[in-house]
């Protein structure tokens, strides 16, 4: 009988380590001039360098170095004055040169720490061992059999991804979190994702593999009361590869803790090994064990010169580091007066940046939120595009709201104006003018419309006089209908009440 996560936590203390790979969004690849783009036809974004053709040589992408250093600074890392690349040697068809250019004993960024904010506001500091640069491998597709390399009829290799710049961020062991370990791990990966987005160095899309996590977990017995938990040695760890969503990070840790606790409780050893994550079943299965592990024969890459960033440049990059995402969210929530729930929805919808820009363009925060989370979210979901890809700018939304606030248009007209903006008819002001969407507040016209409506419903005035003021709503509705929504509803109501002598 397998133990649950909660059962595991009763007897064991979990220790977790996370490696996150971030694909950088540089225009070109790490060591050649090929375009760094996603989704091209296989083997169209390749050249002699990233195909590893005989004679070809790598040249380091300085923009990638800049991105890596900025990420390192955001993670509180020290930046090494001189760091060499290294070759990691292993044979695999998707690795064009049969070695990966990475960093080994001299990572450019090292010894950092990042605050992670949990859902209840608790702040946990996660220590960062290193953040180093490397190149991605190509992609194998195994045809036939089970889809794995074993038993496949044949395999296809696409080298478009080969040589795409990566930064690998490695934490120090995360200890002492007990049953919150899974939550911390998830929040940590979310923080990295938010950071790379805020830095503008990667879109961090986990579902497209732009950000990938490997999760290490081990259990050790809980220390007896009064004993020092940190004095208890670590247990054997498993490394679960390619855990590619925030939810999966949490699930993988929960599953592994249960699995390992079950083994340990039965007196069986945990094998040090890599494991594969299965999203469908929520389980892990064994991969390569430590005994079969490869000797990568690392040595300094002789084709490249060391990365030696000018300290003044590093300091200049430091000034470009954005505010910590979780802290920025807390500050904005305060400033904007959003509830916790509203803020969480905004973040989940990826609307934080859009709302920030809209507010910066002059709109009240709540109004900005209503537009992006309401009408625009609806349109985006209808069109099946990310919110940010809609053909409307934050400045246009701010202008739209300005027209509403000035009383030039009402909410209904504003939605029509927005429809025009989304249809490419120009700024809200242009659409309002072109479509003639101004609110009608000319009293003569409104009085005529009110009188016509009252004539059709003669009992309304009587009801109002009897104190049923809400009966006026029927007349307002009729007037709005008659004027195609362009009437100023407030003024209409005033006229009706005046007619009733109230």
């Amino acid at each position, binding site marked *: 009988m397998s133990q649950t996560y909660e059962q595991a936590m009763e007897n064991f203390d979990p220790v977790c380590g996370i490696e996150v790979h971030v694909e950088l969004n540089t225009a070109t690849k790490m060591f050649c001039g090929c375009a760094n783009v996603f989704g091209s036809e296989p083997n169209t974004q390749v050249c*002699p360098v990233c*195909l590893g*053709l005989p*004679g070809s*040589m790598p*040249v380091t992408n300085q923009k990638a170095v800049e991105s890596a250093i900025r990420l390192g600074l955001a993670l509180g890392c020290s930046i090494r004055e001189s760091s060499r690349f290294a070759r990691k040697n292993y044979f695999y068809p998707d690795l064009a040169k049969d070695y990966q250019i990475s960093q080994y004993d001299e990572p450019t960024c090292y010894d950092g720490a990042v605050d992670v904010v949990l859902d209840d506001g608790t702040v946990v500091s996660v220590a960062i061992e290193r953040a180093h640069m490397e190149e991605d491998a190509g992609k194998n597709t195994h045809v036939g059999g089970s889809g794995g390399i074993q038993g496949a009829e044949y395999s296809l290799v696409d080298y478009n991804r080969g040589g795409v710049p990566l930064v690998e961020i490695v934490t120090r062991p995360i200890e002492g979190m007990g049953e919150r370990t899974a939550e911390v791990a998830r929040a940590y990966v979310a923080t990295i994702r938010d950071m790379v987005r805020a830095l503008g160095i990667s879109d961090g899309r986990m579902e497209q593999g732009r950000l990938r996590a490997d999760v290490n977990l081990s259990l050790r017995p809980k220390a007896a009361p009064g004993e020092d938990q940190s004095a208890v040695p670590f247990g054997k760890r498993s490394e679960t590869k390619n855990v590619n969503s925030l939810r999966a990070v949490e699930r993988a840790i929960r599953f592994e803790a249960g699995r390992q606790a079950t083994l340990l409780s039965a007196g069986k050893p945990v094998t040090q090994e890599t494991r594969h994550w299965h999203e469908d079943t929520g389980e892990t299965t064994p991969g390569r064990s430590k005994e079969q592990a490869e000797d990568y024969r690392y*040595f300094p890459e*002789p*084709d490249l*010169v060391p990365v030696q960033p000018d300290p003044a440049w590093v300091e200049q990059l430091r000034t470009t580091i954005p505010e910590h995402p979780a802290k920025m969210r807390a500050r904005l929530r305060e400033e904007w007066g959003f509830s916790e729930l509203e803020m969480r929805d905004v973040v989940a919808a990826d609307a934080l940046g859009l709302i920030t820009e809209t507010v910066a363009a002059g709109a009240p925060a709540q109004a900005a939120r209503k537009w992006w989370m309401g009408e625009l979210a609806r349109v985006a979901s209808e069109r099946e595009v990310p919110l940010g890809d809609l053909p409307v700018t934050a400045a246009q939304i701010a202008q739209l709201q300005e027209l509403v606030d000035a009383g030039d248009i009402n909410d209904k007209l504003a939605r029509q104006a927005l429809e025009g903006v989304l249809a490419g008819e120009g700024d809200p002001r242009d659409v309002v003018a072109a479509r003639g969407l101004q609110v009608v507040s000319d009293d003569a016209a409104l009085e005529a419309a009110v009188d016509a409506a009252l004539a059709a419903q003669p009992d309304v005035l009587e009801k109002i006089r009897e104190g049923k003021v809400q009966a006026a709503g029927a007349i307002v509705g009729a007037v709005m209908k008659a004027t195609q929504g362009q009437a100023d509803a407030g003024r209409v109501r005033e006229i009706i009440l005046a007619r009733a002598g109230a």
Partner: protein
Amino acid sequence: MSINWNDAAQAVRATAAQMADALAAGEVTSEALTRAHLDRIAAVDGVDTPAGIHAFLHVDAEGALATARAVDADRAAGVELPRLAGVPIAIKDVVVTEGLPTTAGSRILEGWVPPYDATVTARVRAARMPILGKTNMDEFAMGSSTEHSGYGPTHNPWDTTRIPGGSGGGSAAALAAFEAPLTIGSDTGGSIRQPAAVTATVGVKPTYGGVSRFGAIALASSLDQLGPCGRTVLDTALLHEVMGGHDPMDATSLDEPVPAVVEAALEGASGNLAGVRIGVVRELSGDGYQDGVRQRFEESLDALRAAGASVVEVSCPSFAYALAAYYLILPAEASSNLAKFDSVRFGMRVERETVEKTMGATRAAGFGDEVKRRIILGTYALSAGYYDAYYGSAQKVRTLIQRDFDAAFASADVLVSPTAPTTPFRLGERIDDPLAMYLNDVATIPANLAGIPGMSLPAGLAPEDGLPVGFQILAPAREDARLYRVGAALEAALAAQWGGPLTVQAPELEVAQ
């Protein structure tokens, strides 16, 4: 004595500088000159010809003639052309050439036609030099005799039973057999200089980073350097200036202009070396050096003294460990550089049931014994638990050797030694004794470990066997020009003694009709 350019035998024996001048003066066309060399290749190079030099793995007659005709047409139209435009050249098969087969002497690359040009290839094309073909070499430049070529050895034109040196035996033999006036070589531990020594030609390993390595199939990236080969110091300098200079495609390329080596060669040829300090490296002479080699070396020193240079002795004690360090660093880097020959994207494929077995079977079939030997050595040297003892220690030796050079260059402007301990040995003599083969490079290896430039030029023929002896000159990094100044002065002094360039004394090769 003026050259009759209509006489092909005379034309191919001219220097590249003479060819360039005659082309510029309209005394000969590039087409005629190129054809004369192609005819010479046809007469002496094929394994079925009487001489059977086998300097070429691939001859591109059509391409060379097309370039030659285009140059002739441009010249007739008055277009300004580079100095060596129309002078033919051959390129070591380790350098990739778009559209021309490139094998690095290995069966694993048989039939591979690169889709791109090396930077030096592009520069040769930009210099409008007809490319005659690709020259033979030890497989992946591993060897000192070309006997490790996957396509059979090259024969020394001085004595076809002997080795032409290696790995660039093809590039050197092509010069000595008058099949090409200029060739490109690569030097990882002496592969330009030792073949130059045993064929009585000139070869230069430039300062590391002085010539782009982009497109040179890597043996050991931290040691490899492409360089020019010719029959005279001036010719070699002319080619050096075509090849050299910064290349953004090679991260280890020096970001500075090519040294003024042609000017230095011209200055040296005047014969005045007053004030130049020549350092004789004590550890690179004496025991193990053939008598005739030592004799010609001493005579060369006398010639340099006569030109006004002072000669001092210097000591480089760490050189004792150079060979050992070299044979750890080179195999380590080579084991990684050669991993890409895995059958997946190019070259030979021996199909088996799984990809691992296919990779293994291909490498077993495609690589020769010497390559396998070094891959095994290098893989071992880099293994966990051995790295510090082997690769790590070798890197420390490398630092010590650099310090030895620094100290020596404090008291001498250039250092000199015999290029190789002996005159060329017989084909087959050392093929089963790798250690004896490795010892051939004892004098050339330190320059690669330190990244400094070196030249070999003819010092004469050893009295006991009548075979060529090479004289090596080494200079500090970035001071390549010193090699040319001293080399040209020595060349001028010896030519005066010999009554002309030494190569002209080479025995006539029997020619296929």
